[in-house]
């Protein structure tokens, strides 16, 4: 979509201001503005949901529900954080809610092989190491923190708040995730 290209060509402060303007317009009920916000963020939000759930259909549901909830909660969004952080937080809540209600964790490894083929760049294989599948094999808690902090660039404070865990736990889980991934790399 043109929206993403426009955002890329702007300087960062311009881009942030443009996003704030979109949020204001969306809060006033302008669906077109909300669609632009959706187009800007859906790729990152979907990537997170897909990697957290391992199930494309469930990731679809979580993303849809997250944006619908975001629309309904827009009047409460005061802009203390970036819209991107806020929508990620809502999406993570959706994923965690689904995980709590359905204990279907066994299907996680049906993951990404086909789905990342449609990504903007191919799934990386560093020296024969399939990082996507290695992440999918991580224990849930370690995986979630790694995806937020190690891949998504969120701070431990943000990740712990999204996941409902202590900052210390977030740090420990990231350390654990990295150790497990390195072990898998060494096996190769």
């Amino acid at each position, binding site marked *: 979509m043109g929206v993403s290209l426009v955002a890329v060509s702007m300087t960062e402060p311009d881009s942030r201001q443009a996003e704030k303007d979109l949020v204001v317009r969306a809060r006033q*009920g302008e*669906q077109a503005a*909300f*669609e632009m916000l*959706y*187009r800007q963020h*859906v*790729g*990152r939000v*979907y*990537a997170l949901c*897909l990697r957290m759930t391992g199930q*494309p259909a469930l*990731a*679809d*549901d979580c*993303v*849809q*529900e997250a*944006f*619908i*909830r975001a*629309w*309904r909660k827009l009047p409460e969004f005061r802009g203390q954080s970036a819209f991107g952080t806020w929508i990620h937080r809502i999406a993570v809540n959706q994923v965690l809610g689904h995980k709590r209600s359905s204990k279907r964790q066994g299907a996680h490894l049906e993951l990404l092989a086909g*789905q*990342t083929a*449609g*990504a*903007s*760049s*191919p*799934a*990386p294989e*560093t*020296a024969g*190491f399939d*990082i*996507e599948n290695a992440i999918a094999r991580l224990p849930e808690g370690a995986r979630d923190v790694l995806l937020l902090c*190690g*891949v*998504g660039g969120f701070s431990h404070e943000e990740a712990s708040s999204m996941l409902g865990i202590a900052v210390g736990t977030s740090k420990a889980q990231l*350390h654990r995730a*990295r150790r497990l*991934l*390195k072990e898998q*790399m*060494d096996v190769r």
Partner: protein
Amino acid sequence: MSTRPENTDADARLDKALNELPLEILPKSDLWPNISQAIANGRGQPARGSRRPLLVRLAIAASLVVVSSMATSWWIAQGDGRQVKLAGNGEFAALVGPVILPASYDETRVPGARYLQDRAELVQVLEEQILLLPEETRQKVAGDLLAIQHALQDISRELTGDPGNLLLQQFLLTMYRRELMLLDDLNQITAAVKAQRTQI
């Protein structure tokens, strides 16, 4: 991150692999049309293909009992034609009434505590939310609920004289199930109407 010398190479390779992961992955199909539709409908949940438009669901809910089955129709035909408007002030709770169970009823078939709790919560919520529906629709809903109540009373009376009758027991359970479905549909519909009004 570890800074131990023996881990430096592994850490660097891991960081490289993580940095190369695509940050964005697009869903296979565009999700916006569903999101847009759900927003337009004022619903709090995504619109999936199988979901029905609000007005269709409203019509289905209002006619749920009437068209459900031949057996139900027979019981409904016993109604007294009384008109209830459901105008608040506890009328809804009074119409739905308590769960009636014959003293001799087979305990294994008694509606469980979860059912009773769900039913009580729905009745409480609907006491107010039902007022969001047009009066004509409320009358229709009241007629359906009244018909269910008549059916429940009739079945219970019959069961008192014939407690081992499995068909009657099944009727009773079916009727309670239909009542709960109707209440649940009403709850979803009135909640959607409420959300729509809030957004406007």
